[in-house]
């Protein structure tokens, strides 16, 4: 590999900028899954929900852009539809796992298969989707800050969804640890019997947590298709939903950890693209494709030494059995 091409300032700046951007869809899904799992429910269907949210968002944005010609409006409505589609799938997931108490692992895997099958079917039937593109969102340079050397390019020259996602990390942290709602959510995930006898509505809180989590996953999927890749293809999430679940463990159910984990993944992903583009021949490109996933595995091993897994994670709650 021509090292002199890699170890330049502009290469590193471009790498980090792209890394941040690529981290966003995964980060949204991780934040959502943290909220879900803090309530004691494990949603393993993220990959499927991201696919369905990504397709719904893309179709909406594409149709709207064709009809109105206003790209940014189309993109925002597309993202909203992705979010709502995710929430709807979350509702279904909650009915199954919270009310009907189905096995959460099996239900989650079923959701992935459902998402893959459904999106592939629609993609193949709707011939207009092949090769269709959307414009997405324009970058918005933060006034003043974007002209800073180095940091200005890396941090303050992104589209709005990047800033919103970072704000969401802070919001999630406040929600979980500085509000009563967060205290109650965590109580339900740690000891639902205690929460129940304290007068909390365990099932309602779990429904909300699963729906919010799935909504964020759906939004993450839509961000990838509408804003970042501007296309939809079969299997476009490429395992990002599973990476998100792994990163929840790495984050130790903390939004700050989610930010770090998602950035590591995003940078590895960006690196993989760039090395490929540079025509690095010594290694088959398939190995480079593995890079983000291998890195995730490494950080997972390192990160899961100490766990603060919610004590009731994965266990349905029934009254009078606590």
């Amino acid at each position, binding site marked *: 590999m021509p090292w002199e091409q890699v170890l330049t300032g502009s290469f590193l700046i471009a790498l980090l900028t792209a890394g941040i951007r690529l981290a966003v869809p995964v980060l949204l899904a991780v934040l959502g899954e943290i909220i879900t799992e803090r309530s004691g429910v494990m949603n393993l269907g993220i990959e499927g929900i991201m696919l369905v949210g990504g397709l719904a968002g893309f179709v909406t944005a594409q149709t709207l852009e064709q009809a109105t010609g206003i790209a940014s409006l189309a993109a925002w409505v597309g993202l909203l539809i992705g979010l709502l589609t995710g929430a709807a799938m979350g509702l279904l997931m909650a009915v199954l796992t919270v009310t009907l108490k189905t096995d959460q692992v099996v239900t989650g895997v079923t959701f992935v298969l459902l998402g893959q099958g459904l999106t592939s079917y629609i993609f193949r039937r709707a011939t207009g989707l092949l090769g269709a593109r959307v414009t997405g969102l324009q970058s918005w340079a933060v006034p003043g800050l974007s002209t800073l050397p180095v940091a200005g390019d890396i941090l303050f020259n992104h589209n709005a969804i990047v800033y919103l996602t970072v704000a969401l990390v802070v919001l999630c942290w406040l929600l979980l640890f500085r509000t009563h709602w967060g*205290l109650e959510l965590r*109580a339900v995930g*740690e000891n639902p019997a*205690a929460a*129940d*006898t*304290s*007068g*909390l509505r365990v099932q309602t809180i779990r429904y909300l947590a699963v729906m919010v989590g799935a909504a964020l996953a759906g939004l993450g999927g839509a961000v990838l298709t509408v804003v970042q890749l501007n296309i939809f293809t079969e299997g476009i999430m490429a395992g990002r939903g599973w990476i998100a679940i792994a990163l929840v463990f790495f984050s130790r159910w903390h939004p700050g950890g989610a930010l770090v984990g998602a950035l590591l993944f995003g940078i590895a992903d960006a690196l993989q693209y760039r090395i490929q583009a540079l025509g690095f021949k010594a290694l088959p490109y398939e190995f480079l494709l593995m890079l983000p996933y291998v890195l995730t595995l490494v950080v997972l091993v390192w990160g899961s030494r100490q766990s603060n897994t919610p004590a009731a994670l994965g266990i349905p709650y029934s009254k009078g059995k606590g």
Partner: protein
Amino acid sequence: MSDDREDSNQTAVEMGRITKRFPGVIANQAIALDVKAGEIHALLGENGAGKTTLMNLLCGLYEPDEGEIRIFGQLMRFRSPKDAIAAGIGMVHQHFRLVESFTVAENIILGQTKGLWRDSPQRLHAHLQTLAHQYSLTLDFTARIWQLSVGEQQRVEILKALYRRARVLILDEPTAVLTPQEAQDLMATLRHLAAQGTAIIFISHKLKEVMALCDRVTVLRDGQRVGTVAVPQTTEQELAQMMVGRTIKRQRRTDPPERLPQTEPALILKQLSVMGDRQHLALRAIDLAIYPGEIVGIAGVDGNGQRELEEAIAGLRPFSQGELWRTGNLAHIPSDRYSMGLLTEFSIAENLVLRDVQHPPFQWRGLLRLAWIRKYAVDLVQRYLIRTPSVQTRAGNLSGGNAQKVVFARELTRHHQVLLAAQPTRGLDISATEFVHAQMVARRDAGTAVLLISTELEEILCLSDRIAVLYEGRIVGMMDGASADVHQLGLMMAGKTAVGHAQLADQTPSFYPAEADRRTRD
């Protein structure tokens, strides 16, 4: 003062003809109960008598099928615990309902908050301190629940109820997990609360406590009310008879062992140290020798190393230091019969042959001989009086007493020289307890060395020939079973004194049996 008197004569709880059915059982049948403000009212009965169900109805966990509940005269219908809390009902469950990883303060305010943002810890703690002071309860509000002793956790539960303005406080077997001293403190607290007008329902099967603490007693049996009596007008014997439906005698069932002077110990622990799950030293240099034909009782409050001691002796936990010597086989009655003692998804017959199924006659050339297994199981079910529809019944469907009998049947029919029984009667009713005790005494009389680990002081006193007290992983005292002084024992269990260390030295064996199985640290 006259106002106070009127207040305390007010009826706080009135339950009328309450019936609750579960599939296949009538848990409560037309039960009536009335409790006055300022009264401590005992609810007495064996396991399965319906006490807990009745109280779960009162605290909103279940809804009754028939009957009505009035709180301070007002007809209530509780759809959830939230409704009951709003009506002033506070319940301290037997298994505490606390979030272990949360602080004391967080547990107390859980579900009782208004607005979105949390108060600063300082403001919250100051507020709670005032409340605690009012009821003379001391607590560290910043501590996390898992750091607290059981007695402290119970205080958290009580304060939690008071924070919710409970006017009726229900305590489900509150002393089961406490040392005698902690139990004394609890009783003082309860009297204090009653004097301030709180109605207290005290669920128990311990007659002495009920006699010492309560004003009136309602006795339940088989889901029905046997009667309500005023404590000054009754006796322990009468209550026991009401509870069981027949006369029982509770006495020391053990005789001094006839140990031969030359006998060698069957089980020796020498300077045994073991790590607990939290990477702390759970057992510290334990010295203990148990001889054939004696029962040694390990007394102590739960969580002082009992589980680690049990697991170390059973070979389930490595030692960090020291040695363990044992002659012959070990029969093990585990403290958690459902997770360690039985495979709940397996049938009774399968559980009974579990440890020997690889040997004849249960198998022939690798194939199970089902007819043989069945015949063997039917025989054991009869000998051990296990009440079950068939030997094919799932072990998890058995009641606590019958499940324990299955464990006893399997363990005691195997050849063994040492019997390790951990919490053998936990959760069992009087008749099952009697059965278990009789089995242990019979083994002792047949020359087995018996080690009984129990947090039930009464059980220790009833069975043990010698008593060792476990406190914070150390044996802090050793005394003779027949002459043990309950008060002194209680003090030792609370770590207040270490009398008896002199005798302890005598117990350290100066020799090791040559033929003993030797296990050293892994």
